[in-house]
Each structure stands twice: as C-alpha cells, then as structure tokens.
C-alpha cells in the first residue's frame, strides 16, 4: 500500500494486512495526533489496511 505522510509531504510503500494503529506505531506517530484517511475516506485506527490501499496519515497538531 502507499502511505502518504505530511510535514513534509512524502510517500512510502508499506506492506498491507495490518491495522492502522500498528502502522502509526511503526512510524513512531501518536494515534491522538493523526487521522487515517484510507482511499479518501476517514477511518478509525483499528481499520485493517490492505495492499493496494492509498492511506494518508494526516497530522492534526498545529503549532503557534
């Protein structure tokens, strides 16, 4: 699956078949601080992500 990350914008290829929270954990990202948008739709972090999905991990924290 393709995982799109922000700050800065970039894409990484990862294996599917895992829950979104496990992907967040592997990337060292907090669940509270990120939304998961799978194939354009907001999904909860216990959603199983599959090969072929395009997943945006969107940070929600803004500074300032």
């Amino acid at each position, binding site marked *: 699956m393709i995982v799109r990350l922000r*700050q*800065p914008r970039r894409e990484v290829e990862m294996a599917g078949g895992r829950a979104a929270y496990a992907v967040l954990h592997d990337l060292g990202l*907090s669940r*509270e601080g990120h*939304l998961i948008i799978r194939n354009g739709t907001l999904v909860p972090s216990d959603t199983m992500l599959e090969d072929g999905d395009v997943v945006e991990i969107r940070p*929600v924290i803004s500074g*300032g």
Partner: protein
Amino acid sequence: MVDLPRHNANFCATHLQQLCVRQVQRAISDFSMFDDSARILVAVSGGKDSLALWDMLVELGYRADGLYIGLGIGEYSEESHRITSAFATERGLTLHTVDLRDEHGFDIPTAARATRRVPCSACGLSKRHIFDRETTRLGYDVLATGHNLDDEAAVLLGNTIRWDVDYLTRQYPVLEAGHGFPRKVKPLARLTEREMAAWCVIRGIDYVVEECPMAIGNRHSGYKETLNEMDERSPGTKASFYLGFLDRMAPLIRSTPASQGAPEACPSCGAPSSSSETPCAFCRLESTASAHEPVPVRMVLNRTARRAFDAQWGEE
C-alpha cells in the same frame, strides 16, 4: 468514521458533527459568549480550527465574517491566503484582509530579525494588535478565535509549570471588553484538534495541513506532544486537565471577570496602551521592522525547522 479515544468510541460523520456542534453551543452558552444577534468577526488563518469555527458559526445561523492577516511567512502564507479566500468565496462569506507588508511595511520574518524577537512573539503581538483594531474599527461585537482544547491545555500546562499566577487567573474562554479592547471568545475550547481536523475532513473543508514553519520545534508544540503522549497512555487526560481547570480551578482563582488592562492610549496609533507618553509595542515593532530590509523566512528558522521547510516548500 473516526475514533475518539477520549470518548472510547468510533463516531460516524453525522455523530461527529453533532458532537462538535453540541460542544460549541455548550461553550457559547456556558460562558455567555454572545447572543443570536451578535456580529462576530472570526480570526481566520487558513488552518483547520479557524475555518471549522467559521463554518460552524455560519451553520448555526450566526452572523460571522472573517479577518485574515497576511503575515508574509513565505509560501506558507501564500497558501493560507489562497485557501482562506477560496473558503469565503465558495460560501459567499465576507472576508476582510490586512496584509502586514502592504499596510505596515514589514512581515514576520523581517520583524523577528530586526527586533531580535522570536518570530512567534513578533507575530503574536502583530496579530493581537490588528485583530483588536479591526474588530473595533469595523464595528463587530466580538472577536472569535479558533483556539481549541489542545491549544488551551498546552497553554495551561506552560502556565502551571511556570506557576504564572497572573496568566492562570486570566486563562478563560472569554476575555471581557475593556479599555478599548474588544470582547474575545474561544468557542472551540471544548473540542480537541483531532475533532476539528475530523470536522474539516468530513465537511470537505480544504485547509492548510502543514503547520507554520516557525512553529516547528517551539515550546507550545512540545507541550502539545507531551499531553498527547499522556493521552495515549490514558485517554481523556488532556481534556480532564483543561476542562477540570475550567470547572473547578478557574472559579476559585478568578475573582473578577477576566479583562484586559491598558488604561492609556498610544500617542502614535491610539490603540490601548500602558502609556500615553511612548508608542505602543506594535508601533515600536513597526517602526524598527519597516526600516529593515526584507528578510526571507528561511533565514529566521533554526536548523531543524529549516530542514523541514526546505523539504516541504523547496529551497528558495
């Protein structure tokens, strides 16, 4: 669907919107922020919170217009302006704009360099001055800002760590009008950043996802991360810290309604000021910064922020 760990539940689009609207209505009513006839000016930055707030107030039937300040923070400001203008145009809303460079002869990177202030300090001072001035000048009853629960909890944590009693007694979702300052309210104080970002995604609101380059690695962001780490281990900690403060601590330490003090008027611009003899802090900043040659945003970033800035926007 989105999971909200503090509620230990997943919310569908409809229920998430109901939750957000209920919390905003509760904040407006609990803190007597404004009534149905108020003319509200929303301070909009192009970020999720201010656009979500504007969207919600209009949805609830309030008369709310926007005010955007062009801070001159490179491509970040250009994108913020584009997104904010598009939001207003698509919905037929009134957006007022003040551009720092056009109207005051400086931008935030230049002000930071010229005055040796940290950028957020120069920025905060400029924004407060202009938001106050325009709210009054344009005849609005109240200025609404998009500060959310995470913002307020992070400020509370900082104030508590420093035991800044003065700030603690004034930290409240409403600042009464006084001494020429307009009334200021924070209707999103009961909603988290996660909830606001989810609101924007569900409502199809395009907003600037990348944060301001000046915020990278600043202390405020650090407090937010710390609170989120605590929330990760024990969901709801952040909300209970801030909402518990509002419910149980604020009534004990606020002897009078939080107000803004500055009994004199600046001899240069007439804004509320602590002295009628010397120009106010904004006029002093303007005078120093506008005399300085423009400084590109990259030049005022620390090494970490510069790396992130280059990766995001490309080297200038």
